[in-house]
Every structure is written in structure tokens, then in C-alpha cells.
């Protein structure tokens, strides 16, 4: 049985192809909110225990064990808050949007279970501003749940059990996906990250203990309660457990969001499940975990898509967003595009990130346009390092990880495609024929561009 024909039971997004919203009645008819009722009868420590046993790790990118994070809350300090991170902004990642648009109540049930576990009475869902539909659907679903008494005071008729849930919209800032920036934004300020410690679990929203979890992480919680930690662990690769959502984009025949176990290999994901490279082109490189992680070349893709599997190949699983590039994509152009993203999204607090991301972008743009000098490569390597934590002038030298995220792809591209950078500089132009010379927002145009073959 090949990977493509193997059938896994999909629990997070069983009917993703239909793209319909499952409203409250349908959700309850399918057994929804049973786990919220069950959690009401459980001791908070027991819920945390099950989540710890399951090995659930955050689905937002860092992969931190969820149960352990919940365990960091200081004893006896109230009120506590739960903030659900729905500011899905990492380029390539598009899994939380269908989750919220199609199964809003599974998120609300997750919020109820999680709030009961961490003894929080108020939760916030911070949805990025661009997700108009997801915010509308979530707001309507929350109102439905309030009307039924599933949210609010004395939920499910249980005296003294309160869970308030507010849907809060961001307004277009990648940095607000960083947990401390999300909290400052939620407080009504610019989304500036804060130095840790103190960690949000100790001093977070409004200075109170706060847990921040990704949408998918929260949605996993009721499933784990229903079927048990062992069920969740039945899909395991090393320390990565449970089915997860992989967002696949770029030059594959069938891009999309796929619910798969962590044992699936990147090769099977691209060639089996997504049908291979469009027009049967050659694979050039893969970004396996969202735009900030180091790139992989075709010989490196026979790896399981778990945190450990991807790390062994020298990259990171991140938000499990796979971007696939075929041989028509110029790596210098691609990294210049990404460097523009980080330059634009740097919040500007820390000099290494603010100046470094702009500097890298200017150099990359110059090389791509044909004005590069050999010494540019040394400068780039000094700034970006080798695509590893702590190397170079930015990574590890800013308050949050955006600086690292800006540096890693550049360092990695330099390492993986050094010859192509040199070729750009020696030829004084981009050697990729038929490629559009518009990049990074069309801020500059090469007069000689030819029309690209049909994509």
C-alpha cells in the first residue's frame, strides 16, 4: 500500500473538501461538546495529565510540549487567561483558517476543555485581520454557544464554572503571532514582543498568568480526552505524536491541507499525496516548515515529517507548512522575496533585526538584479550566519525569534545554492530565463522580462 492509498481517519478536518461550516446543531449531533461535559467532571490536574501523556506538542511552530507549558502556571495565582493564537501568518501556513471556517465549534470545545484544565475563566481567540471569514464564523459560533449556555456563566448548568470567550481581530502584523506580541496587541498597543522571562505563564495578559496555544493544539485537546492518550500516540515518530495538518503549497499538482501522521515522509507527501511536481518538472528545493526554516534539496527529502526527522536533515518542522519549488524558481529571487517579507514585518524594536533584515534584502535584491559584487556574499554570510541558531549578526540577538527567522533562510540559501549566487554576480544578471523579474512587490522591474510559460 503506498502512502497515497493509505487511509487515515481524519478527525480534525474530516470533510475539508466540502468547505462547509459545521454549525452547532450538526456538531452536537456528531457527538460534539461531550468532551466539554466530561472535562467538567474531571479534576484540572487529570486533564493536564492526559494531555501530558499524549505527548501533544504545540502546532504553531515551536513544538513545545503543551502539557508542560500548562504546568508552568504558578500555583494559586488568579485570574488566569487563555489566548488562542489564530494569527496564522507564517508564509506557507494555511491550516488554521479551514479549521476555524469549517469546524468553529471544535475550537470552542477545545477552549472550554483547556480553560477547565488551566482553571481560566476567560479566553481570547486572536484572529489575524486578513481572516475576515474565519472571524465572522467564529463570532457567530461563539454566539450560538453562548445562547445554548455552553459558554458564559455556569456553563452546562454547572454552578461556578464560567468560561467567557472573546473573538479578537488583529490588523495585519506577522509579529503578532509571537506570543508576547500577541498579548501586547490584545491589550491595545503596537504588537511589540517582550523579553522573556517573565514568561507569559507567570506574567502575561494584563500582567496575569496566561497560556497561549495554537488553534490546532487547542482543537486536539477534546480528541485526546475522547479517545485517550494512547490513541493519540498510535501515530508517533520519536517525540512527535498525533496526526497533524500539513499545508502544502507551491509547485505540486495538488496543493492543499492534509491531515497525516508524523511518520509520513516528505518524499511521499510531495510525490504521492500531492501528486508530484506540476508539469512533471524537476524539484529544485523544499521549505519544509514555513518560510523561516532552512531549505532542503531533493536528495534530503526522504525523511519523516516529525520534529526530529526534519531536524536530522538540518531544518525544522515549524508549522508543518511545506513549500515546493520546481526548477524554474531562482533561489536568489526566492530568498530575496522572503527577505522582503521579514524586512516588512520586523516590528522595529531591536536594531539587529530591523536593520539586518533591510540590509539583507537590499543586498539580495542587488544580486538578483545583476549588480552584485563578490564581497556581497561575505557580507551576507556575516549578517545571516549559517542558518543555525546563534550564528551571524541577527540570530539570537533580538528580543523574539523574528530576527532568527529572517536570517535562517538567507544563511541556508547561501549554503545550499552558493554556486548560483556566484553565477548571478559573474554574469551580472539572473540566469533563469523566462522568469519574471518582478519581485518583492513589483518594486522594480527588469525591462527585458519575457512571459513565463503557463504555470
Amino acid at each position, binding site marked *: 500500500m503506498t502512502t497515497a492509498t493509505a487511509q487515515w481517519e481524519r478527525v480534525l478536518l474530516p470533510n475539508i473538501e466540502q468547505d462547509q461550516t459545521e454549525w452547532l446543531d450538526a456538531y452536537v449531533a456528531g457527538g460534539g461538546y461531550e468532551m466539554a461535559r466530561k472535562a467538567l467532571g474531571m479534576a484540572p490536574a487529570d486533564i493536564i495529565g492526559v494531555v501530558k501523556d499524549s505527548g501533544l506538542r504545540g502546532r504553531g511552530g515551536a513544538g513545545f510540549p503543551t502539557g508542560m507549558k500548562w504546568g508552568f502556571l504558578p500555583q494559586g495565582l488568579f485570574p488566569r487567561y487563555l489566548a488562542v493564537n489564530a494569527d496564522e501568518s507564517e508564509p*506557507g501556513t494555511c491550516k488554521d483558517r479551514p479549521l476555524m471556517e469549517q469546524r468553529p465549534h471544535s475550537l470552542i470545545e477545545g477552549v472550554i476543555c483547556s480553560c477547565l484544565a488551566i482553571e481560566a475563566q476567560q479566553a481570547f481567540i486572536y484572529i489575524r485581520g*486578513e481572516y475576515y*471569514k474565519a472571524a465572522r464564523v467564529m463570532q457567530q459560533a461563539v454566539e450560538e454557544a453562548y445562547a445554548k449556555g455552553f459558554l458564559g456563566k455556569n456553563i452546562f448548568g454547572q454552578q461556578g464554572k464560567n468560561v467567557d470567550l472573546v473573538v479578537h481581530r488583529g490588523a495585519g502584523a506577522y509579529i503578532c503571532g509571537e506570543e508576547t506580541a500577541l498579548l501586547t496587541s490584545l491589550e*491595545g498597543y503596537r504588537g511589540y514582543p517582550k523579553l522573556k522571562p517573565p514568561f507569559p505563564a507567570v506574567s502575561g495578559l494584563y500582567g496575569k498568568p496566561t497560556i497561549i496555544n495554537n488553534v490546532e493544539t487547542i482543537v486536539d485537546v477534546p480528541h485526546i480526552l475522547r479517545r485517550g492518550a494512547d490513541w493519540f500516540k498510535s501515530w508517533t515518530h520519536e517525540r512527535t505524536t498525533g496526526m497533524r495538518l500539513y*499545508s502544502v503549497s507551491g509547485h505540486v499538482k495538488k496543493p492543499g491541507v492534509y491531515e497525516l501522521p508524523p511518520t509520513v515522509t516528505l518524499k511521499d507527501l510531495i510525490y504521492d499525496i500531492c501528486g508530484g511536481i506540476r508539469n512533471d518538472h524537476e524539484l529544485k528545493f523544499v*521549505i519544509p516548515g514555513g518560510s523561516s526554516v532552512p531549505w532542503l534539496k531533493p536528495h534530503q527529502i526522504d525523511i519523516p515529517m516529525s520534529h526530529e526527522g526534519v531536524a536530522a536533515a538540518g531544518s525544522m518542522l515549524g508549522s508543518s507548512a511545506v513549500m515546493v519549488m520546481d526548477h524554474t524558481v531562482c533561489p536568489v529571487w526566492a530568498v530575496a*522575496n522572503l527577505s522582503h517579507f521579514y524586512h516588512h514585518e520586523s516590528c522595529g524594536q531591536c536594531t539587529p533585526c530591523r536593520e539586518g533584515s533591510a540590509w539583507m534584502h537590499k543586498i539580495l535584491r542587488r544580486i538578483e538584479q545583476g549588480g552584485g559584487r563578490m564581497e556581497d556574499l561575505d557580507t551576507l554570510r556575516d549578517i545571516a550566519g549559517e542558518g543555525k541558531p546563534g550564528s551571524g549578526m541577527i540570530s539570537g540577538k533580538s528580543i523574539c525569534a523574528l530576527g532568527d527567522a529572517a536570517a535562517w533562510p538567507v544563511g541556508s540559501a547561501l549554503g545550499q545554492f552558493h554556486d548560483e549566487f556566484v553565477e548571478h554576480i559573474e554574469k551580472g544578471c539572473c540566469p533563469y530565463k523566462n522568469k519574471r523579474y518582478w519581485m518583492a512587490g*513589483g518594486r522594480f522591474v527588469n525591462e527585458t522580462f519575457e512571459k*513565463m510559460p503557463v504555470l
Partner: protein
Amino acid sequence: MPTILKDRTDEIERLAVRYPSRRSIMLPVLWMVQQQEGWISQQAMAEVADVVGTTVAEVYEVVSFYTMFQQRPVGRHHIALCDTLACAICGAMEVAEYLKTKHGIEKKKVTPDGRFSLEFVECIGACSIAPAMLVGETLHGNLTPDGIDAILAQCP
């Protein structure tokens, strides 16, 4: 006296009680203004400052940080076209070219009839349906020339 927010007082107060701190209504109130007016003027910022209980400078600080808040008028249908990597390799710039040559919609400009305006934005979380754009509040993916014609035809 507020003029822009004069009919929204009840709505704002209902919102304010949902947050432990009044300052948190900053973003929701700014969204209210933008949805009503299409953009956020200096006068609107002054009114928001009064409502939130802070200074105009602090409101401006927030407005200027978040890229979705418009500080000048936009078209009736504001188009946000993603040009980050996943969309860029799937033809986002061809979409831009098409919008310009076929429909006369140019980046950072409002069309003379006030119907459309266009902005290039960073990733909008529609990578698996690239290239994608937001027209007003609606997301459109897998864009093709014919598809774009049909989408724009529905915008009065």
C-alpha cells in the same frame, strides 16, 4: 462631540465590558471606524482616543503599526494581492499585470471612478490556493484571468 462614532456608543460599551481593560477595545474600535468609513482619518483617531481614553498620539502609534489600517481613502472595493513566495511562484505578479492592463487597477492607486484600489500585501494564509487576493472582505484563490473578470464584475 463625536460625529463618526456617534451612533456606535452602545456597541462600544457592550464591547468594553468584555475585556478586563478598556484599552483592549483599541483595535475593535479602529476596525469599526474602518468598516464604516473605509479608512481612518485624523478626526476619527481623535474620536477613538476619546472613546478608548487615551491620546491621539497613542492611537496614531497603533494605526501606523498595523498595515491593514488605511490612513488614506481607498476604493469601494479594496484589493489586497498577496505577493509573498507561495503566491509569487504561482503567478501573483501576472495577476497584478492583468489587473493593470485589463482593468486599469494599479498598485497604491484608486481607480478614477473610485471603485477599486490595489495594495500588495504579505502572506494572507491562502498558500494552498495561490495566487490569492482579498477583494474587500472576501478571499479569492486559484486566480485566473477569467476568474478575475468574474470577481470584479460582481463589484458595483
